[in-house]
């Protein structure tokens, strides 16, 4: 245990937390407007691929990030078209989009290089700029949601759309914009994953981080700061788990694999208790399940 939280582990925790944090912030924006975007994982994948290809083409990872942002926004437009405009079911659409993205990005990726050769690596950004981007995104999301009229309308749309509608705002437009903006951040998150220390795209590179981000939004109770804190917690668990894999300890590393999700499940229980639902027996039971 004493060697668990070394500097290297902490650095790894931050590295692992970065894409999750940005994706969670994006999903948070979307969900605040009342859209549950289960296509987050798929959007991250498209963003990652776009980031990889744009970096490869331009030679600079900064343009890769731009590519991820743009690809994410495009994904958001498609999802918003399906969910907001033609009102397809949000859950089904999101799932379908993610499944589509897994196949489509793999397909497109394989088209991008000659089979038989190793796919080229790309120049990557160091941790400094990536952390800075997370902080900028966090500050931006917080500022828009907490300090601007646009954020007020966005939040109200997720809370009481009929009231917002009665005031003359257009709920579908607000939701479409929120979905596009949130997805753009998810695309950026994907690009940050491949344009960061990884410097490479591989099949299904996001490996479920989008789903983690989705859970983190619930864990964070839709607050930007807590989402980033949650991402750090996740990164810490992930780093601990990676570190423990090689060593024999009393604590199985799988506990850290499960921990972020169990904590989120607990958070759901605690949240409900606060809102007044009787819940006295809940926490011990779930704790027992860990």
């Amino acid at each position: 245990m004493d060697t668990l939280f070394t500097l290297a582990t902490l650095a790894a925790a931050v590295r692992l937390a970065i894409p999750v944090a940005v994706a969670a912030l994006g999903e948070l924006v979307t969900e605040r407007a009342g859209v549950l975007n289960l296509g987050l994982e798929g959007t991250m994948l498209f963003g990652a691929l776009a980031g990889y290809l744009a970096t490869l083409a331009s030679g600079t990872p900064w343009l890769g990030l731009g590519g991820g942002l743009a690809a994410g926004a495009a994904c958001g437009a498609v999802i918003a078209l399906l969910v907001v405009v033609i009102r397809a079911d949000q859950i089904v659409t999101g799932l379908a989009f993610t499944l589509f993205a897994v196949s489509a990005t793999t397909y497109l990726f394989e088209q991008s290089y000659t089979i038989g050769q190793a796919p080229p690596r790309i120049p990557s950004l160091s941790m400094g700029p990536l952390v800075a981007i997370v902080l900028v995104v966090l500050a931006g999301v917080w500022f828009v949601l907490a300090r601007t009229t646009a954020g007020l309308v966005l939040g109200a749309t997720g809370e009481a759309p009929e009231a917002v509608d009665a005031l003359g705002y257009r709920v579908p437009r607000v939701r479409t914009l929120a979905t596009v903006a949130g997805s753009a951040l998810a695309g950026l998150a994907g690009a940050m994953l491949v344009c960061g220390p990884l410097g490479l795209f591989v099949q299904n590179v996001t490996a479920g981080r989008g789903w983690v981000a989705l859970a983190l939004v619930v864990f964070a109770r839709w607050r930007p700061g807590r989402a980033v804190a949650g991402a750090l917690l996740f990164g810490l668990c992930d780093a601990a788990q990676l570190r423990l894999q090689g060593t024999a300890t009393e604590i199985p590393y799988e506990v850290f694999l499960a921990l972020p999700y169990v904590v989120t499940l607990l958070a759901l229980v605690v949240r409900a208790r606060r809102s007044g639902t009787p819940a006295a027996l809940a926490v011990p039971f779930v704790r027992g399940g860990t």
Partner: protein
Amino acid sequence: MIAAALHGIRRSFGSAPALDGVDLELRAGEVHALLGENGAGKTTLMRILAGLDRPDEGTVEVAGQPIGEFSPRALRERGVAMVQQHFTLVPTLTAGENLALARPPGRLRPGARQAKRRVAELAERYGLPVRADVPVERLSVGEEQRLEILRALDADARLLILDEPTAVLVDSEAEALLRTCRALADDGRAVVIITHRLAEVFAGCDRVTVLRRGAVVCAGEPVADHDRASLATLMVGTAPTASSGRQRVPGAQVRLRLDGAARGRLQPLDLAVHAGEVLGVAGVDGNGQAELEELLAGIAAPERGAVTVDGEPVPVAAPRERVAGGIAYVPADRYRRALAGPLTVADNLELGRGPRHRPPAARRQARAEPVLAEWDVRGGGPAVPAASLSGGNAQKLVLARELAGGPRLVVAAQPTRGLDPEAARMISERILAAAADGAAVVWFGAELDELFAVADRLVVLAGGRATEPFTPPYDRGAVGLAMAGGHAS
């Protein structure tokens, strides 16, 4: 000065006209009462004026200018604001944030201090205190309503419509609200109060318009020219009272008994309904009928007291036991509680009854055929979705199911509402036949004529309390007065 004028307004929902050529003139500087029973068309008329609905025919002028586009924003820009019964505030935002949402001061939203100051200023100017530092969901209903009014005034509403504003208020708050309305009128605004309570018409209004079944029966006459009795008569009509002509069997056993049963708005109620008797329950929505309906049907348990049928408590949240216990339930909202729209007509006949193992669909439908024929349910037979039936046929379907097997208690909430006369007549007859076969019937009604025709006794619910039962021959004026809260004074 004319604040607004509506001419020849017609509006219908489905086949039923809600407004049938209504004229109305509102003047600046007055508090105008819009009076009528449930379903008279008051709210529909005012929603049109507020741009929340559009007329099928007719014109609306605000301050002399005709209205072309009916949208809340267009009408708000013309100075019309409506405070609806269901508030349209965002519950998670504070008062100041709700004001900023309606009228953003700029790209940035106001800081907490600034927002609070704006609320405080408005509150002081109009004498409507509202806490500014907590989310709206933690405000009292009175505060929420004051905030709704403040929001309208913040947008400089010249014509303010309040829909049943006192329904949610305690007496002292209601009085304060009426004083506020008076002050706003003195300020040169026009105020419309939609109400069914006579007391507040006399307490704070200048002129009164009465609607009955979508038509004006009293057009903007000074309140001073009227008394309670005359307005109550205008509301409920003057047609001769039809008598049910039914005679309660003396000495019949008590089937339904309420012993101090109370829940929510419904104050403790003692009641006994006998086998073969039809008890009418009259009253305006929101005075406890919904709670009573839910108690009798076992949707919810009484908070105090007991509800028993033949001495056994009504099973709560156990619908199949309710059915097995012979309690028939015809809910006011049939598509919310009685019929599953996407399922077939035959399946809907099976709700709450039927064996664990179901026969094949073909046989189920074959079994439904004679029932549908007996009840004259038309519209495509047993295999079509129930949602495709017309209102009358859908209601016949509900009754065909609920009255099967000789119920001991029939809870019928507005069983004929919105139906064509033929279907309404049939449904009345069948419910009365169930009573003749020994059921106790509780009939919640919105239309007095119908209740007078079917009920052996009649109670009025007002403010959650039941009046002493009325008996035939019914005194229309007295019942109307009781519905309008007349007993309180």
